[in-house]
């Protein structure tokens, strides 16, 4: 058991290590000019110095904070509305097109609109990200409700559960697995939109701002380093949600 887990982690490390080695080899062999591709060691050094003295930690936290705000707004509006939409076939049919349309529209294309509505401040970035993430939550929750096992609902009904009890005791749990899929996708999407917004809407801080600044000053180690850090942030958020899901929705995929 213990050794099986160890070997799993060992295998998981193979890919990243290989990437690191290939990157290093390409750099050493001079296949790409060092101006465009700094060595991985140089990149990690840059992350280290910018984190300890250059305020990258603060940028990381700003981006994380904006992402979380957008996510919380998306979840707070997405889950209840999703349940309502999913519970009514007619309601769902009537707005299915709108949901699919806006889900397919790049959220970043709406920056100008949100800037007009919410101004140039922080909130317009959060609002765009929240909007994009909200659609994902909404869609997944509604889908989860619509695909609730009919037999379980009948079982509760036959045991004498009221409509309210069926909702609270059965529907809620039935759509939980799909809700988590939505929440996990939403948090990743929120991060993407926030970083892009920090890059292009104009921002005083955040990882996106740092990326665009390093591009302008041609500080490639910092550019690569910040991309790495954004990736780690996204991966970490995903991991947290996977863990939560495994813990809270233990029956997912098994029943």
């Amino acid at each position, binding site marked *: 058991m213990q050794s099986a887990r160890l070997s799993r982690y060992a295998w998981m490390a193979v890919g990243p290590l290989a990437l690191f080695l290939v990157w290093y080899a390409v750099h050493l062999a001079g296949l790409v000019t060092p101006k465009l591709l700094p060595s991985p060691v140089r990149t990690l050094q840059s992350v280290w110095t910018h984190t300890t003295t250059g305020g990258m930690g603060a940028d990381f936290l700003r981006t994380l904070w904006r992402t979380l705000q957008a996510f919380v707004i998306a979840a707070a509006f997405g889950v209840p509305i999703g349940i309502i939409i999913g519970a009514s076939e007619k309601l769902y049919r009537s707005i299915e097109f709108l949901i699919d349309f806006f889900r397919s529209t790049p959220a970043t294309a709406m920056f100008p609109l949100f800037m007009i509505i919410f101004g140039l401040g922080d909130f317009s970035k959060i609002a765009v990200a929240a909007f994009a993430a909200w659609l994902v939550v909404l869609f997944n929750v509604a889908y989860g409700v619509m695909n609730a096992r009919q037999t*379980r609902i009948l*079982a509760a009904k036959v*045991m*004498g559960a009221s409509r309210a009890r069926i909702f609270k005791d059965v529907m809620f749990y039935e759509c939980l697995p799909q809700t988590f899929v939505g929440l996990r996708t939403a948090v990743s999407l929120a991060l993407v939109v926030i970083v892009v917004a920090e890059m292009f809407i104009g921002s005083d801080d955040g990882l996106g701002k740092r990326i665009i600044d390093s591009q302008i000053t041609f500080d490639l180690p910092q550019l690569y380093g910040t991309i790495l850090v954004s990736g780690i942030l996204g991966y970490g958020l995903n991991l947290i949600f996977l863990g939560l899901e495994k813990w809270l929705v*233990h029956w997912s995929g098994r*029943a």
Partner: protein
Amino acid sequence: MTMAQRQRQEAAPAGASFPDLRWFPPGTHITVRGLKKSFDGNPVYVGFDIDLPKGKIVSIFGPNGCGKSTFINMVAGLLPIDAGQILFEGKTIADTRIGYVFQNYREALFPWLRAIDNVHYPLRLMGIPKAERDRRIAELVAGFDLKFDLNRYPYQLSGGQQQTVSIMRSLVIEPEVLFLDEPFSALDYEMTLIMRDQLQKVLVARGVTTVLVSHDLEEAVYLADKVLMLTRRPSRIADYMDVDLPRPRDPSTLTDARFIELKARTLEVFQNAVRAS
């Protein structure tokens, strides 16, 4: 029997020009009168009458798609009827405590609750306090021959164990009527044999009126006090046969001469019913 029921029985038809449909013969639990049901204009029941006896097990057997599930779902109040009347000793379904065991146990149990909490659930709905629930469940468990831990989640149990939990969940409220729609058809043969005997033991001990749909003729006869055979749709009664085998029945019953005779008769009725249409 309540006063009202007794009065209804005494005021029984015997030539009455306006028969009271709520009258039921003694020993009868469920009366179905003039039942009609069609799906999208395709009739499944066109005026169906039957009496189901109290405290007995009735198996329903018939060709695929003849309306067995439709019938028990209508009687259990899960499916609206187009016309007719279904009463339980004169009461409606709303005033009757029922249990229902689904064929698909995987989709009928709540996987977010442990097996034991699944059994608690109907009692919680009734607002029964924890101590009383525990007492009733302990009593129920004593009647079963459980070889697994009820503190597991349903997905950690085998199919037979899950269906056992389903049956416990339906019995814990001490239902007046128990409905089972092909409860063992998703289990392997060995498990089916064990489950049949388990079910027979519990039902006979508790004297629950039971309506069982089975697509296995052997099972239908083995468990039943009466076998209701249906024709192709629109469904009519092909035969409503008494099974006078002594209880408890056990696997040796399967080779008993009387059992084989009854089974042969039901098979013949079934074949005639299928051929007739």
